[in-house]
């Protein structure tokens, strides 16, 4: 057993020596090799690595839409066999359905899971209102800006009340201002709701500023190269918001360390 990090509580998500290979007619590709990782309840972990290192694949494994070819993926100590309601997944783009209104989009997960739709609609309305979208419930996605659409996607993810939220570069399609503002909002929402969060990104700054722990994956096949806690000294001991964290004195030190570990080689 790996030691868990928060007061001996069992890990919320655990990967034990996970391998994943893709098969194709040209041969097999080793995407992930021997990944072991555990995430405590309520923890916010970021996974960084270069494109193609299997970061997104890792999330697909935890969400249960992919099965590992070796090792085990556990959520709450039980092997993942398929998608569960405990895990919410936020993709790289909002992927809102243009034929549905904002509210109808937000309740999609609840609808698929066969949940009580009256409750789901009430919860979605509450979430959307809290995210400043109260007056857009019956609008179409195309009437909203990129940042607003990604907030709808967050509401859609949280509407099914998952314990664990997987974030797959959720801000990559946004412009840089919206990106910074939304990182603050999303982090605050996830912390306040006590969600366990796993963020996949190639943006080092985003990882340091949002997460309590940053895991670096090597190039393909992805292995865990380093796993380090991110701590900021604040007067009240509380974790600073991402935007404030970027200005903290520790930020640059973490940035340089992680930059070196990523071994970024500019190609072409």
């Amino acid at each position, binding site marked *: 057993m790996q030691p868990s990090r928060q007061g001996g509580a069992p890990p919320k998500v655990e990967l034990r020596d996970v391998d994943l290979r893709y098969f194709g007619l040209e041969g097999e590709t080793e995407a992930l090799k021997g990944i072991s990782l555990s995430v405590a309840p309520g923890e916010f972990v970021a996974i960084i690595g270069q494109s193609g290192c299997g970061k997104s694949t890792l999330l697909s494994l935890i969400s249960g839409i992919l099965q590992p070819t070796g090792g085990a993926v556990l959520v709450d100590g039980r092997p993942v066999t398929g*998608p569960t*309601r405990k895990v*919410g997944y936020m993709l*790289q*783009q909002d992927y809102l359905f243009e*034929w549905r209104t904002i509210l109808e989009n937000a309740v*999609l997960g609840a*609808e*698929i899971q066969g949940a009580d739709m009256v409750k789901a609609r009430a919860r979605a309305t509450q979430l959307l209102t809290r995210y400043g979208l109260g007056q857009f419930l019956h609008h*179409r996605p195309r009437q909203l800006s990129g940042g607003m659409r990604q907030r709808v996607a967050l509401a859609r993810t949280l509407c099914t009340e998952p314990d664990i939220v997987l974030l797959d570069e959720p801000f990559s399609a946004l412009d840089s201002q919206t990106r910074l503002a939304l990182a603050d909002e999303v982090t605050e929402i996830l912390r306040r709701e006590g969600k366990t969060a796993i963020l996949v990104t190639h943006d080092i700054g985003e990882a340091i500023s949002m997460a309590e722990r940053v895991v670096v994956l090597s190039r393909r096949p992805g292995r865990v190269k380093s796993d380090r806690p991110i701590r900021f000294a604040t007067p009240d001991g509380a974790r600073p918001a991402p935007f404030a964290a970027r200005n903290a004195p520790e930020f640059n030190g973490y940035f340089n360390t992680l930059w070196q570990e990523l071994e970024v080689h500019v190609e072409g």
Partner: protein
Amino acid sequence: MSKADLATTAGPSVAYRAWLRRERRGRLAVRAAQLALLLVFFVLWEVLPRAHIVNPLFTSYPSALWPTFLELLKTTPQQASILAHTWSTVLATIVGFSAAMLIGTAIAAALWWWQGLYRVLDPYLVVANAMPKTAFVPIFYIWLGATLSIYGMSLAISLFVTILMIYNGFQGTDPNKVKLAQTFGATKWQILAKVVLPGSVPTLIAALKVNVGLSLVGVVVGEFQSASLGLGYLIQYGSQIFKLNIVMTAITILALVSSVMYLAISWLEAAVMRWR
């Protein structure tokens, strides 16, 4: 109303009003040109045969069509009214493209569901689509009889292209939207009903547009062979007794029928796009 819609509260500026006027004038000019083109066509059709530049026996004239139409409107023991002919053709066309849409969508969904089935059937579908279906008109007549062979031809001519178009639409569904549904644990049936089908509505309308025209072709060709009713029959009959007036009247009505169906689909498309 969204915030963006409220941006122009101060009333339109002079420049904007001028721009609107120019836009309107541009649209009117296009309409006028379209009408003029139609008018030129009819004038040439009337004048050239009358001036004996072309043989009137081959073309008839527009002015001869209205009396012919009134003549054909009568129901006699030997001859059904032209309204009955038109209705017969329209009905067969509606049945043809409706059946093609329903059966085509169902088959496309089955091919989407079982990818293996698609891989097996793909070459046959492509060949079936490329086949000139009209070659089957005599065979359909023998197999299906007078009435059913017309419906059959109407369906056959539009079915394969429908299957291919709709299947391609289904395949073109954004895989990330499918993945999104999967993260919520969607079943295959839910993915079809909530992602693939509603996402393919524009494809369905495009297929419908193609179908309406093709079904009409199928019906008319079917009627050439086997009908005693329908505009296709009337064309065949008119040409056999060398009464080009009848043929041209029937063709003009076919043109009108096509236009009405085209307008109906444009209206449907606009309604659906507004709803989306």
